Each structure stands twice: as structure tokens, then as C-alpha cells.
């Protein structure tokens, strides 16, 4: 008996003992939490959980925010022009690339490829467009601070549209003079093409028209939204608003153990911010520092909120004025994407590094170290069942897009 006590005393002092006990305590804590989850069978949510579900539902999405940097944002003629431009391949160096080439409306305005393909191959995954009017920052690295500023980037990128500003102004003059001048003023296109600043102005206005179109693309309710509405209304579910036991269990992981709502919060399931989540570098691509570089580009852009082509007053540009401009948190941080329709747009991450939704869930469960910078993730250590349930829940976030009738297709050819 004394020998056992002596051995125990020796063990208590050893580091091995601390590890064993901490693992045991960890396991016990996990078991306790699992037991607590059992005490709340699927379909029964606490008051706090119901508040969280409400906040994630599309019904909680506020009205479309104004864009003071684009005075044409809510101009319907500008939106019609923007729609035509969005689908027009003449706005490219080789006459074959339109915005819709990569942002395919029938595929949630993305292309299903790891890297976008225009006149060449881009270094990033094509991002969807729906709901982006709610975001202060565009692109994976937030290098544009408005939808119109974003729309301009690919047009003169040598690997996307590969166009020049002069070429674009010429296309507008030849094909859209009446439409352009009805929005931006009579004679403005003619005057614009006589000087460099004028061409730049046409270029900025192309972005503003495209943004006026894009801001009208949103989300319609998914099965998850109907489930939440019915749950909050008393818990009687229609076939269109029912989640399976696995999907409900996945939802419970999403808002609980998975801590997914740390970043995927709000009705668009994104905090619209930037995070290093330890995604591996894509082979063959140049070093990519994410937000650390993106914020510098946003601040230097001539099309920024407080720049010469913006319609905003300086007071309107608070997101830009108060943005974090340096620090380790920006290194290899990328924008949190919306999870709406996430199951319909593999591959995932900023360069399509993860092929399937299952791979994404496995990544968050394991939380590998970042190639550089510091990953914010902690390992979730989800079981195979939990990973399957979480994935099943994510699939309930799929739903149709919302847009004015016919606006998910190219306008009828006029010429």
C-alpha cells in the first residue's frame, strides 16, 4: 500500500502525469459537454441558441446598405447598363472574356475552378457576387472598398479581361453611347475620350454601372431559413423547412462546439473580415500575404472611397479611415466568405486548395499550422460522425438567388 502511495507521489511530480491527467480531464470535459448536448435533443433550442438561429437567418438581413461612393448605385438605368456590360465580352483584350465568363450566373456567379480563367489564369479563386453589396471590402484580400472599385480590377488585369481603359471607352462609345449618356450626362462620353482623365472617368463609371447591377443580386431563403422561421414560430415544420437529425446535429455543432459562428455570423454567415485559417499555399503561385498586401492596395487605389472618382464625402469613408493597416493579424488573412450556397461551389478557399466540403470541415477539425503568419484556428477534433453532420448542415444553406426577373441571364442582343 505504501509502495503504491510512493509511486503515485513520484508520478504526481512527473510531467508525464500532468499530460495524462490533462488528457483525462480534457476527455472528461468533452464527455460532460456531450452529455449536456444529449440533454437538449435535436429540435429543442435554448433561448440563447434561438437568438443565434434568428441572427443567422436571412430574415435578419437588414436593408441593402447605401453606397455613398457611387451616386448611381440605385439608378435603374445604370443597373440596366451594368447588366449589359457584365455579359459583354467586348470588354476584354481578346473579345472573348466578359464578367460573366468567370462569374457564371447559373453557378452562383462563380466558375467552379480553383483559379479564375480569363485571357490567362488568375492567382485566386473566383468569388461569388450575391450579397456583396453588404460588404465593406471586396476581393479575398479586401483590396477594393466598394463593389464598383472591385468591378474595375479584373477589366485591366492582364490575366482576366486584359483590356485597357482607352479600349473600354471606345467600346462604350461604339456600343453604349446612348445608354451611357442617359446615366452619366449628355456629351460626357464624347468629351471623356479626348483626354486621359476623361478615359479614367469612363472607366470608373463602367465600374459604377456594373456595381448598380451587382447590388441587385441577393439570396432567396434556403431550407435553413425556413427551418428557423418555423422553429421560432412554434416548431411545426413543413417539408420545405425540415432538417434531418443529422442536419440539426450539424447546426448544433455549427453554433456550439465548432465555434463556426465566430467568423461565419450574421444573416450572410460572414463577419466580412479577414482571418488566417492556416490554408496551405497553392503550389506554383507567388507568395501571397493576403490582407497584409490587400489593405495597402486599397489605401493606394485611385478608386477608393475617398479618392478622386468617388462620390462620397470624407465622412462616408469610415471603413477605410479606421481600417487596420498593419500587424501580424493581417498576414495571410483572407476574407470570410458567405456560407450561403457553399455546397454548390467547390473547390474552396482563396486558391481552390480544398476540393470538397468534406475537406473543408476536416481542415477546421484538424487546424494545421499556417504556411506563414499565425492561424487563428484551434483544433476542434470532431469525430467522423460530427464532421458528416456539420457538412450535412452546411448543405441546408443552399437556396436560389434573388434578382429582378430575368437579370440572371444576359440581356437580349440588341445589335
Amino acid at each position, binding site marked *: 500500500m505504501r509502495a503504491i502511495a510512493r509511486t503515485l507521489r513520484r508520478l504526481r511530480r512527473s510531467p508525464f502525469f500532468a499530460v495524462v491527467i490533462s488528457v483525462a480531464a480534457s476527455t472528461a*470535459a468533452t464527455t460532460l459537454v456531450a452529455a449536456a448536448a444529449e440533454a437538449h435533443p435535436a429540435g429543442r433550442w435554448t433561448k440563447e441558441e434561438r437568438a443565434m438561429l434568428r441572427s443567422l437567418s436571412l430574415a435578419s438581413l437588414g436593408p441593402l446598405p447605401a453606397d455613398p461612393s457611387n451616386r448611381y448605385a440605385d439608378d435603374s438605368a445604370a443597373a440596366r447598363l451594368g447588366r449589359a456590360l457584365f455579359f459583354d465580352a467586348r470588354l476584354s483584350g481578346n473579345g472573348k472574356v466578359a464578367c460573366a465568363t468567370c462569374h457564371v450566373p447559373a453557378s452562383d456567379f462563380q466558375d467552379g475552378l480553383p483559379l479564375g480563367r480569363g485571357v490567362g489564369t488568375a492567382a485566386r479563386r473566383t468569388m461569388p457576387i450575391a450579397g456583396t453589396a453588404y460588404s465593406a471590402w471586396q476581393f479575398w484580400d479586401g483590396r477594393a472598398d466598394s463593389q464598383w472599385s472591385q468591378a474595375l480590377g479584373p477589366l485591366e488585369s492582364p490575366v482576366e479581361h486584359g483590356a485597357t481603359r482607352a479600349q473600354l471607352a471606345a467600346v462604350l462609345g461604339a456600343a453604349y453611347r446612348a445608354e451611357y449618356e442617359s446615366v452619366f450626362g449628355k456629351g460626357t462620353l464624347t468629351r471623356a475620350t479626348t483626354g486621359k482623365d476623361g478615359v479614367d472617368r469612363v472607366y470608373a463609371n463602367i465600374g459604377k454601372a456594373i456595381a448598380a447591377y451587382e447590388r441587385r443580386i441577393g439570396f432567396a431563403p434556403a431550407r435553413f431559413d425556413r427551418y428557423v422561421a418555423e422553429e421560432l414560430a412554434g416548431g411545426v415544420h413543413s417539408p420545405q423547412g425540415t432538417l434531418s437529425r443529422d442536419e440539426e446535429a450539424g447546426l448544433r455543432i455549427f453554433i456550439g462546439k465548432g465555434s463556426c*459562428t*465566430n467568423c461565419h455570423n450574421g444573416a450572410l454567415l460572414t*463577419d466580412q473580415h479577414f482571418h488566417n485559417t492556416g490554408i496551405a499555399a497553392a503550389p506554383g503561385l507567388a507568395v501571397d500575404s493576403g490582407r497584409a498586401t490587400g489593405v495597402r492596395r486599397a489605401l493606394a487605389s485611385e478608386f477608393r472611397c475617398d479618392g478622386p472618382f468617388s462620390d462620397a464625402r470624407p465622412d462616408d469613408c469610415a*471603413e477605410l479611415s*479606421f*481600417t*487596420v*493597416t498593419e500587424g501580424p493579424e493581417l498576414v495571410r488573412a483572407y476574407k470570410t466568405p458567405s456560407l450561403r450556397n457553399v455546397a454548390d461551389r467547390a473547390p474552396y478557399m482563396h486558391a481552390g486548395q480544398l476540393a470538397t466540403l468534406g475537406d473543408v470541415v476536416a481542415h477546421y477539425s484538424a487546424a494545421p499550422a499556417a504556411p506563414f503568419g499565425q492561424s487563428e484556428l484551434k483544433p476542434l477534433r470532431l469525430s467522423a460522425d460530427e464532421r458528416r453532420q456539420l457538412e450535412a448542415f452546411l448543405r441546408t444553406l443552399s437556396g436560389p438567388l434573388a434578382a429582378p426577373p430575368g437579370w440572371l441571364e444576359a440581356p437580349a442582343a440588341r445589335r
Partner: protein
Amino acid sequence: MRSIRSLFPIVAAAVLLNGCMLFAKPPQDLDYSRTRASEGGFYRATIRPDGDSIPQGKLQRWTLHLETAAGVAVDSATIAVDGGMPQHGHGLPTKPRVTRDLGKGDHLVEGMKFNMGGWWVVKFSVAAAAGRDSVVFNVKL
């Protein structure tokens, strides 16, 4: 009592091993008062967000009211704003700053934003005639 104390590092290790799930709960005894004394006792500060509740994901303007421990309004002060989520190890998503002295000890703080639910801290570092000191607020979203 001794055995409870010796368990502390083990519990802490268990918390770390379990990652996000357990550290999502903030400490029980946090003071969420909107009026706090500064750490050195030189000042008393009150935060007044725009509304009753602090919204998530939206830029906000706050008013910071600052007075000395004796209750005299402090108008002339250099005030730096910092903060973050202690349990997540990250700072604020924006770089807020005091943009205007509103008089009567009130200072306008612009650029406040919280992009996640949970426990945040916001720290105001004050340099004024009464001395250098800082005041820390706990904020729960």
C-alpha cells in the same frame, strides 16, 4: 484546498486541449459596467455607445466621458484606443480613435467595431494633466 490549487494547471491544460469549445465561455465574474475607474485610480470613465445594445459587425461611434477621480471633467487629453478578444488572442477588427473633444469631459470615439460574438475588452490609454493611466471595459456581444 491544496489539492484544488494543484488542479488548476491541469484544468487549464484541459481547457487548452479542448480549444474553442471551452474557451468560448468568458470568466463568470467579469464586470461589464459602462463606468469604470482607471487602473491607477486617476480617472473615472464612462462609455456611451450609440444605442442601448452594441451591434455586431457595424461601425459605431461611442462617446467616452472622462473625469478625474474627484469628478472634474477632463477635456484636454490624449487618448489612445485598443482592445480585442482575450480568449481568441486577436485585437479589434478596426483601428478606432478619438476624433473630437466634445466638451464637458466627452470625447467622440469613431471606428468602433466588433465582428464576433463573445467577450471583448476595450482599453483607453489616457494622458492628461492628472497623469497617465488606462481604463479597461469589458464588452459582451
